[in-house]
């Protein structure tokens, strides 16, 4: 992290595209934070991975179990796309948070909870519409 002029939080602006998704090893900067913070960050990361896996299970279930339900595959694909986005951004989130902790900066906020909530709400509303149409 060389952007010391900007707001005091870990950022990925200016990094090469693959580095934005997979930020550098946090151990390359700063110093070890309180081990409890590191473990809390790890547990949060794992909770995101489980959320992604739960969405994947829901997506695969919707696509296969709703066989005689028109639009079931579409619901499944919607949940799988959300699952993929969640998984793809979870390591980035972990690494940025760990880096901020090591630099004693404020932790970077995430748009993922709001984006996920909106995404799931859209899938659920679509499911309700499909249930009404199929009834």
């Amino acid at each position, binding site marked *: 992290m060389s952007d010391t002029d900007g707001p005091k939080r870990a950022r990925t602006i200016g990094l090469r595209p693959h580095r934005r998704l*997979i930020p550098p*090893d*946090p*151990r390359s900067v700063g110093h*070890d*934070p309180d*081990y*409890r913070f*590191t*473990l*809390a960050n*790890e*547990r949060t*990361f*794992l*909770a995101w*991975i*489980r959320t*992604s*896996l*739960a*969405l*994947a*299970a829901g*997506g*695969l*279930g919707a*696509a*296969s179990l709703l066989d005689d339900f028109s639009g079931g*595959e*579409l619901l*499944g*694909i919607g949940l*799988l*796309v959300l*699952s*993929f986005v*969640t*998984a*793809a951004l*979870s*390591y980035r989130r*972990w*690494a940025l948070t*760990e880096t901020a902790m090591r630099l004693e900066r404020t932790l970077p906020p995430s748009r993922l909870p709001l984006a996920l909530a909106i995404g799931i709400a859209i899938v659920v509303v679509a499911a309700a519409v499909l249930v009404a149409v199929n009834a």
Partner: protein
Amino acid sequence: MRPEEVFDPLLQQERTSLAWERTAFAGLVVGLFTTRLGATMHLALGAIGIAVVCVSAGLLVWAGRHYDDLHVTLRAGESPVHPAAAMAVGIGATVVTGLATVLMIAAAFSDG
């Protein structure tokens, strides 16, 4: 290495170890489900499912061992940070969910 006593009265590393094990269980469920689907929908899904089950079972055993090993790390005053494990799980979950999405879209299109 088996610890003789717990390092932290707040049981931080035990909670983290349980989080790893819950994640491995979630992986096992997704893997078994994907394997079951593969039998009826798409053989590639079955192969992905079996791979996910194997990796998740390995992760489960690793999580248990890692819990014991963390006592040594924490007593030595070292950071328990483990970027390789986070990256492996993060990239693994991304690849699996990405492949499942692509295969499901392909299946939807091939059905018309």
